[in-house]
């Protein structure tokens, strides 16, 4: 028999905005559910190292799923006639529908980039449901710095350009093997999907006006940001932390925008203490 990884992958269907969405999910481990949300334009493969980390999976049931339109999850029927655009409401409904379909009780939710931003929305609106939220590279507000139309047009290869744009977000110290694996995920994204996700991350999902209302006594908030992240910069993360009383902040030196996939070994140094604190709470 091959030396299988501990990850188990399965499919099931949820209904979001009345539409069936066939979802691909991977999980490993036992204990407190830890739901993981991938970045814009990528998929849950970003979490493969966490899913295989026994230090984590001995205490946490790590669950990572591909959002509809991403990875091995299907777009809804009729997708061809609709431009993909992730709104805040659609994103929240998708994640909450997933969690409820999975029958999760009091899970922790961790997201990166747009997923990190969403966890802040959930910390406010679903504080009773989530045990705590971990926002990786998930400041409550960003400023766009390039024209999104470059990401989806017939005279530019979508996969190549998405990867080339986000390669700037990876720290120069990160191992080449994982840098290019992270970028490979971007090269495989569907047409217009990264662009559609950035509608949430850069525009619709701004949350700086509501983040001060998060009560971290009800739902603890952990913010982790990579030194080399040029969109969710350390400064933006610190600004976010200042708006959320009681938020715990870690600036990850030598790390970029994709901590769990670009440098999984270094990420352990930063995520282990957070998970230990959650475990001990």
């Amino acid at each position, binding site marked *: 028999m091959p030396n299988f990884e501990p990850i188990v992958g399965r499919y099931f269907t949820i209904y979001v905005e009345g539409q069936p969405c066939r979802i691909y999910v991977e999980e490993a481990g036992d204990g407190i559910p830890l739901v993981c949300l991938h970045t814009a334009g990528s998929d849950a493969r970003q979490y493969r190292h966490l899913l295989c980390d026994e230090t984590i999976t001995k205490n946490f049931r790590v669950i990572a799923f591909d959002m509809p339109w991403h990875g091995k999850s299907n777009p809804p029927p009729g997708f061809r006639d609709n431009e993909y655009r992730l709104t805040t409401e659609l994103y929240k409904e998708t994640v909450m529908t997933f969690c409820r379909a999975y029958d999760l009780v009091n899970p922790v939710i961790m997201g990166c980039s747009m997923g990190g931003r969403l966890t802040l929305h959930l910390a406010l609106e679903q504080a009773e449901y989530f045990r705590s939220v971990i926002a990786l590279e998930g400041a409550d507000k960003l*400023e766009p*710095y*390039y024209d999104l139309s*470059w990401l989806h047009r017939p*005279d*530019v*290869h979508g996969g*190549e*350009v998405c*990867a*080339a*744009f986000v*390669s*700037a*977000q990876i*720290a*120069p*110290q990160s191992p080449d093997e994982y840098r290019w694996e992270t970028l490979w995920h971007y090269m495989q994204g569907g047409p217009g999907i990264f662009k559609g996700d950035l509608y949430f991350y850069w525009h619709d999902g701004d949350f700086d006006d509501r983040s001060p209302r998060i009560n971290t006594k009800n739902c603890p908030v952990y913010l982790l940001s990579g*030194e*080399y992240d*040029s*969109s969710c910069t350390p400064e933006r993360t610190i600004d976010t932390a200042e708006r959320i009383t009681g938020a715990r902040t870690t600036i990850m030196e030598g790390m970029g925008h994709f901590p769990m996939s670009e440098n999984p070994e270094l990420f352990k140094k930063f995520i282990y203490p957070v998970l230990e604190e959650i475990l001990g709470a």
Partner: protein
Amino acid sequence: MVLNKLKDQVNGNKALTERGKWVSLSFTFGIDNDDYLISIKNGKITQIQKRNLATESGIFAIRAAKSTWIEHWRCIPKRDFHDIWSMLPKQLITLDGNLLPLIQNLQFFKDLIASPRDGKD
């Protein structure tokens, strides 16, 4: 002068020139107030010359301060200086002209410009 070595560094990188095999154009590379025209044919640099006349122009231009490029070419650059796309939000570079060929081959141009990064710091 870093640009004196750029041609050999790029042309000696087979993987890079292979990735750029569809690129044949000239672009303007600015260091402080000096512009240079970098000409490429099938992914290889054919010429790098100082721009002396306004009529000598690349299809697009990438310009930054000399201190920015020096930091960019260090083995481990400081954050914001490590990639031309991370320089954008900090306004450390300017882009002008027809950006289509740049965007179509963005990773190639990023790697070409970063070629002087020689592993020594």
